[in-house]
Structure formats: structure tokens, C-alpha cells
């Protein structure tokens, strides 16, 4: 029995098909990342798993309990921790009152331990909480009864980088202790450090379920380099280079070390080959700048799962914005 089993799950909202015949499993003890751009239908799947909404077709079980049967689901919920996207609490209640209410129903064996990691201001009312603190309160209530399965919709949204890495570290430790995670995200770099496998959802359809390493190997790096001298597209014609662009740029003040009559060339491309080959190739040039970043999820979609009118050549540059925040650090 897998922690989560989903068979032929569909949800039709009329104008949109939010989930289209999804079938996959989350194994016991794994960290499964449920990825996709905003609006892909991730939250629909998660809310169906939690029994909040009914599927149009198909079935799903949580720890063997049918999510369409309230009685069965109540039994499963005793060992499930749930964090919705943008969790919402009674604004007039203090954090402590909310945790006390949850504790009175489901227990709080680990409350103090979790509060040392995520520490919302418990004696203030939720009205006074920042969005980061609301998220922390959501994390505490999800973990405090020591559940076996964690279902979390965008768990790191609203957390600062320190809290994000603390969360990742905690997830890894809990996984070692045998816990199962089903986490959604729209940013690959956010979950790649903790996930064993990822399922990618796009327009309600599951495009792939694979191990995170193989996805990262295939998705490659986004490379931007500035070199002194002229470079042509033919110079970038080596293994692993995709979608190269070559632009001659003018030397600005930040490039004052370069004589005025020199040409400067900026190249960008996605690289899926061996990083040593790349460095070897650029070793012959006089480099002014070299950026290597994890390829944004949108680029991965574009390259492997087909393009549609919504994604344009700009996706690369706009997408890098997310990835610089967390910083690609190679195949860690």
C-alpha cells in the first residue's frame, strides 16, 4: 500500500478541466514534489485528497483510505499533517489558541520541538501576523501531532530564505525518520533539494513523474557569458548547447577595463552537457562574466514537453529571476 494512490482522477469545473485523468502514487517514506506552474491544477488535486472537494471522476486513497468516504478519511486524517496554500486562521484568535484547539483534537506531542524551528508570535492575534508568520503557524499545526504523511501546498511560500532552508533541512530529517511528504511547488529549485521524485502537472495533465536527478540532468543550466572579442553562433556549436543567442554589446562603464575599440559579445544558452566541457570551451576566451543558473521550470517544460503559445523565447530571462533567489549551485 502506498501512502497516496490516485487513479484516473479528474475534476471538471465546467470551463476548465483542472485535473485530467491523473494516475500516480506516492510511495511510503518518499518526498514527492508536485510541480507545475500556477493554475496547473495542483491545489485541486490536494484539496481532493483532503476530502474538501469531490472528484468528477476517478479515485484516490490516503494510506489506503478512500478520500471520497468521510468516515474512512477521518481515520486517515489522524496521521496526516496538512498545510493548505495560503493557510487562513481566525483573525481574532491568538496563535496559541489556534494551536490549543488543534491539539485538543489531534494531539501535540511535538509542538515544543517544532516551535523551536518555526516560531510565530503565539501570544499575538493572527490579525497582527505577517504572512511569513501565518505560514509558520501553518507549519507548526501540520507537524505538531507527529503525522506519518504530510500534504503541503506550497509550503515554503512566504518564508524567508533562512526559514526555507530550515524547512528543507527538517523535511530531510523527517524523511530519514520514515515520514512521507507530498509537497507542491511552482518552483523546481525550491523543492529539488528535498524531493526524491517529482510529478509535473501542466494544464491539469500529468506530463511526467520521474526521479529528481534525472529531471535536473535533463533540464540543465542556464548560461550567460560575456566575452571580449567576436563570437558567432558556430562557436557555440558543441554538445549540450540549446537555444543559443549571441549579441554584440557596447562596453559600458562597468566594462572600463576593456579598450573602447574591442567588441564584447554576450551569449546565452541552456546547457545540458558536462560542466567541465563548458568551462574548457570558455577557457580559451577572455571572460568578463559567467553566470550559471539552474534552468527555470518553464524552460524545462518548453524543451521536453512541447511548447504552446503561452511560452515564448522570453521565458528564459523572466524565469531566471526565481532561480537567482535560491541560487543554482550545480548538481548538488
Amino acid at each position, binding site marked *: 500500500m502506498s501512502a497516496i494512490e490516485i487513479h484516473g482522477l479528474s475534476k471538471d469545473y465546467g470551463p476548465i478541466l483542472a485535473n485530467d485523468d491523473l494516475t500516480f502514487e506516492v510511495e511510503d517514506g518518499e518526498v514527492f514534489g508536485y510541480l507545475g506552474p500556477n493554475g496547473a491544477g495542483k491545489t485541486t488535486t490536494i484539496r481532493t485528497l*483532503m*476530502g*474538501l472537494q469531490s472528484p468528477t471522476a476517478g479515485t484516490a486513497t490516503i494510506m489506503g483510505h478512500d478520500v471520497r468516504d468521510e468516515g474512512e478519511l477521518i481515520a486517515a486524517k489522524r496521521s496526516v499533517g496538512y498545510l*493548505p496554500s495560503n493557510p487562513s486562521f481566525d483573525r481574532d*484568535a491568538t496563535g496559541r*489558541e489556534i494551536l490549543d484547539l488543534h491539539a*485538543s*483534537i489531534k494531539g501535540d506531542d511535538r509542538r515544543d520541538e517544532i516551535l523551536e524551528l518555526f516560531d510565530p508570535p503565539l501570544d499575538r492575534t493572527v490579525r497582527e501576523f505577517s504572512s511569513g508568520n501565518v505560514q509558520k503557524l*501553518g507549519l507548526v499545526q501540520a507537524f505538531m501531532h507527529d503525522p506519518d504523511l504530510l500534504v503541503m501546498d506550497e509550503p515554503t511560500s512566504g518564508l524567508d530564505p533562512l526559514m526555507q532552508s530550515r524547512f528543507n533541512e527538517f523535511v530531510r530529517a523527517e524523511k530519514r525518520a520514515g515520514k512521507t511528504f507530498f509537497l507542491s511547488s511552482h518552483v523546481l529549485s525550491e523543492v529539488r533539494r528535498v524531493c526524491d521524485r517529482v510529478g509535473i502537472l501542466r494544464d491539469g495533465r500529468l506530463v511526467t513523474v520521474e526521479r529528481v536527478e534525472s529531471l535536473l540532468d535533463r533540464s540543465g543550466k542556464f548560461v550567460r557569458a560575456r566575452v571580449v572579442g567576436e563570437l558567432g553562433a558556430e562557436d557555440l556549436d558543441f554538445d549540450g548547447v540549446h537555444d543559443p543567442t549571441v549579441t554584440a554589446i557596447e562596453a559600458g562603464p562597468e566594462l572600463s577595463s576593456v579598450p573602447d575599440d574591442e567588441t564584447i559579445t554576450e551569449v546565452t544558452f541552456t546547457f545540458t552537457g558536462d560542466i567541465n566541457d563548458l568551462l574548457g570551451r570558455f577557457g580559451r576566451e577572455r571572460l568578463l562574466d559567467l553566470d550559471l543558473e539552474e534552468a527555470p521550470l518553464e524552460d524545462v517544460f518548453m524543451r521536453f514537453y512541447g511548447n504552446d503559445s503561452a511560452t515564448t523565447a522570453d521565458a528564459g530571462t523572466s524565469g531566471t529571476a526565481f532561480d537567482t533567489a535560491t541560487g543554482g549551485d550545480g548538481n548538488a
Partner: protein
Amino acid sequence: MLEFARYEGRHRVRGSLVLTAGIAALIALYVWLFPSFKASGIDWEAYIESFPPAFMEAFGVRNITSIEGFLSAELYSFVWVLLLGMYLAYSAASTVAGEVEDGRMDLRLSLPVSRRRIVGEKFLSLLVPVLIVNLLTPMAVYGGVLLIGESMSAADLVAVHAFSIPYLLACAAIGLAISVALDREGRAQRAALGAIFGLFMIESVVAGTDAEPVGGLSPTRYFDPSAILVDGTYDLAGAGILLGATVVIVLASQWWFSRKSLE
């Protein structure tokens, strides 16, 4: 047991006390006015005789120059039956729809409890305003009446408040059903206000006409403050009907919510 009811009930105490204080202030004003009203020399009886029956029915106007008649017409028939009924329905309307709309319900339902229990306990938490307002107000009324040198039956005063409890619970149950049916808090609140006001109007308008049985759908038919205060008659059957209807509506709301897909 009853963790949700206790939690939500606690959060209703302050609002209920504020509500009661507001009502007490209104009572003080009415009671203070009564001596000059009585002494004005105007023939109030003749004046109200000229009102249409629907008005008499709506505001329970009877024997208005006695303190009992005055209070039932000015305070109970209007403030209790209409305003407080609307307040309870409005509060109940926020309970489920408000949590569904802003996502709080998602977390509440992540707990290992049934949806029926959540709806049932939300309803029980509304006992807090109902009980507080009916416990404290009669003391204020009785004190005020004694202060202006009048007297009235304490038993009837207690009775009017006791009999108002099933009435207010029925109004709350109507609000609860609307709250389960609609997914937007604001819409549910407006619908609940409209429902109580509409039922009150229907019952008033059909009074004394061929359509009078239609008024039986309105909870106001089963709670008549004037009958209790002025005539000293208690409608036990009416209270029973209100309690029975409350139970039926709450059960139906629970059943409905347990099957509802929250989208």
C-alpha cells in the same frame, strides 16, 4: 468533546456582552420615557385602535399604557423578535460560509472530525449570545421598571425571555442553513437578514386574512411577547414547534454540509 463549540463560544462572549449593553441602553431609554408617555394625556388606546391589523400584529400593540404593554410593543415585539432574530440569523450565516470563503474551513476539516460535528458545534456556540442576552436583559428591565416606580410580574418577564430562546435558536438555524447553502459570507449574511425580515413581514401581513395559515411558516407566529407579558399566557406548543424546527433545520444543514464539495 465540544472543543469547537467551546472555542467559538469563548470568542462570542465579548460580542454578546457588547450586544447586551446596547440593548440595556435602549431599555433604559424606553423605561425612562414611559412615565411621560403615560402622563401625556393622549388617548393612546383610541389612537392604536385606528391602526390596521397588520401593524397591530407586527408590533404586538396591546394595552400600551401599561408598562407590560409598553415594553412588549416597544421593546420585545420589535427589538427581540425582529432585530435580535435578524442578529442571530446574521451571526449564524457567517459561521460556515465565512470559513469556506476565506479558506479557514480547509484547515478545520484537516482535523479528524466529521463535517456534521463542525456544523453542529458552530450552532451550539450561538447559545452563548442567546443565553447571555436573555440572562442579563431581564435584570436590566426589572431594575429599570422598579426605578420608575412601576411594577410588573417577574415571572412573566422571565417567561418572555425563556420563550424567546427557542425563537432565537430557530432564527439562528435558518441562518445556519443559509450559511451552508451559500459560499460567500456577505451573500449569506444578507440572505439571512432578508429571510428573517421577510418571514416577519409575511406573518404580519397575512394576520387576519384568508392567507393566515401561510404565516405558520414564520417563527414569529410561535413567539408572542405581548401574550406573555400582557395576558400572562404561555404558548408551550409554539415553543415546542420552534425547538422541533430548529433541530430539523440543524440536522438538514449538517447533512447538506457533509455532502457538499467545497470548491
